[in-house]
């Protein structure tokens, strides 16, 4: 079997002396959605940061489209086609929506007007509020700005750290719909989600992490059907 489009393979490492990740593997195929779920403190966000290079790995490697990118900085990974939406502080609050998108496209030398139009098509409310300061928007709209900013580089992989944290259930459903739409355009999506049930429903692949290691890995549907996963992580 060919290697997945993006894989963090056997990652071991942490912020300080103690390791948080233990031989953890996360992968996503082209145009698919992979979701990382697990209890609090399982290392979900850490695994994501490791894939993006924000964490020094003591073991394992990260491969994007057949190229080993383990030693690249996060900035260099953006140039390679990875987009990252942090969980918090993910927008420029004092700048307008449009300026946020422009800053997302900062590394692009070409005309990015068409990408901006695509983002506005995906999130029509942003077009309406494009001259408003991003910090004045509602939680859901801010997340849309954050995702839109990351899309401006036309990434091949979009990484989302709890995109639905702190938004209402209706907005959450809407965001998940948009994420599916983004995946359909051929962009791979790797995300960490607190709302495990909804996230696994749209996931092609699900990873259940416990204490920094893979506990269950399967398709989203299979994980949902697995009685043990349901009992331990999905609340029955």
């Amino acid at each position: 079997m060919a290697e997945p489009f993006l894989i963090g393979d056997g990652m071991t490492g942490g912020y300080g002396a103690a390791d948080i990740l233990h031989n953890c593997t996360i992968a996503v195929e082209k145009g698919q959605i992979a979701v990382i779920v697990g209890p609090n403190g399982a290392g979900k966000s850490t695994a994501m940061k490791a894939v993006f290079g924000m964490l020094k790995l003591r073991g394992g490697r990260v491969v994007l489209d057949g190229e080993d990118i383990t030693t690249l900085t996060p900035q260099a990974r953006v140039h390679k086609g990875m987009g990252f939406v942090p969980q918090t502080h993910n927008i420029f609050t004092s700048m307008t929506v449009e300026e946020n998108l422009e800053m997302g496209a900062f590394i692009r030398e070409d005309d990015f007007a068409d990408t901006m139009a695509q983002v506005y098509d995906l999130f029509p409310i942003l077009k309406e509020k494009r001259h408003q300061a991003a910090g004045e928007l509602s939680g859901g709209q801010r997340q849309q700005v954050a995702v839109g900013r990351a899309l401006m580089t036309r990434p091949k992989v979009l990484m989302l750290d709890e995109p639905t944290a702190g938004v209402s259930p209706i907005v959450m459903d809407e965001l998940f719909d948009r994420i599916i739409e983004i995946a359909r355009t051929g962009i791979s999506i790797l995300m960490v989600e607190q709302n495990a049930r909804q996230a696994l429903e749209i996931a092609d692949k699900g990873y259940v992490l416990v204490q920094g290691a893979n506990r269950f890995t399967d398709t989203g549907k299979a994980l949902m059907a697995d009685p043990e996963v349901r009992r331990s992580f999905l609340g029955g």
Partner: protein
Amino acid sequence: MDILNALVAFLNFVFIPGLAYGSQLALGALGVTLIYGILRFSNFAHGDTMAFGTMVTILVTWWFQSIGIGFGPLPTALLALPFGIAATAALLLLTDRAVYRFYRKQKAAPTILVIVSLGVMFVMNGIVRLIIGVEDQSFADGARFLITAGDFKTMTGLTEGLAIKTTQAVTVVTAGLTVAFLFWFLQKTRTGKSMRAFSDNEDLALLSGINPDRVVQVTWILAAAMATIAGVLYGLDKSFKPFTYFQLLLPIFAAAIVGGLGSPLGAIAGGFVIAFSEVMVTYAWKKVATYLLPDSMAPDGLLQLMSTDYKFAVSFSILILVLIFMPTGLFKGKSV
């Protein structure tokens, strides 16, 4: 009662001097606020940066004067200004390279950088005094007045005169143009926007591929320009003395903090708040009051709240009030 003459006296002695002084403070505070917003520390060397830029401008002005280059009715110093800005930018970039970069790489706390800037201040202080001395230097030339008090009186027939010094007019116009350029730069250009993004959210700016070294460089260059222009305008309007420029640090910081550190709009508002407060509290209102009040109520004293020697107390008091009741300033800057 003579409202018209009272108004003219007010304009002549309070409004116009306050406007000119406010413009100078606003430019100084813009430099401070820019450095605070992007490099995240209070730059105590800013007053002496102004002194350095002004000194270079004065030296070039003297050279221009000696070879017979002038600017007609306008001060020759305006022609020398670009040289002052260039030299100051070079000095600041060099300082950043030699001093600040080291601490930035260590991710030093802002308090450490403040103390570092204090050291830089003393060095700049020394350089300026070594080169030009500690004495007062006057370098204004060209026409002295746009309108003299006498002309105004014959023109209007009022007993009160309104004088507008060329340097005051030059100050307000130059400051206006500089501020317009700065705002255009920050709002409309790619580099300016990336500076605002960096100031807003450094991590996300890095994630977006914004080059921090470039942002820092452009910030120093802009700060050098603001400081030099502010210093030269102040020197033209009053006179140049290194110690006075060191003292200007207080009203400038007061202006930046009153407006809200990190907010360019706030720096301008703060500059005028401080300038007008200083002028109004230290002005002897007797003349204006005499025009406005009936003869029977004519004041005996000077009606001066505070002697001009205490003008720094005014900025200090405002600074303290703002820090207690409105720590983020008028325009919601970062709290100190």
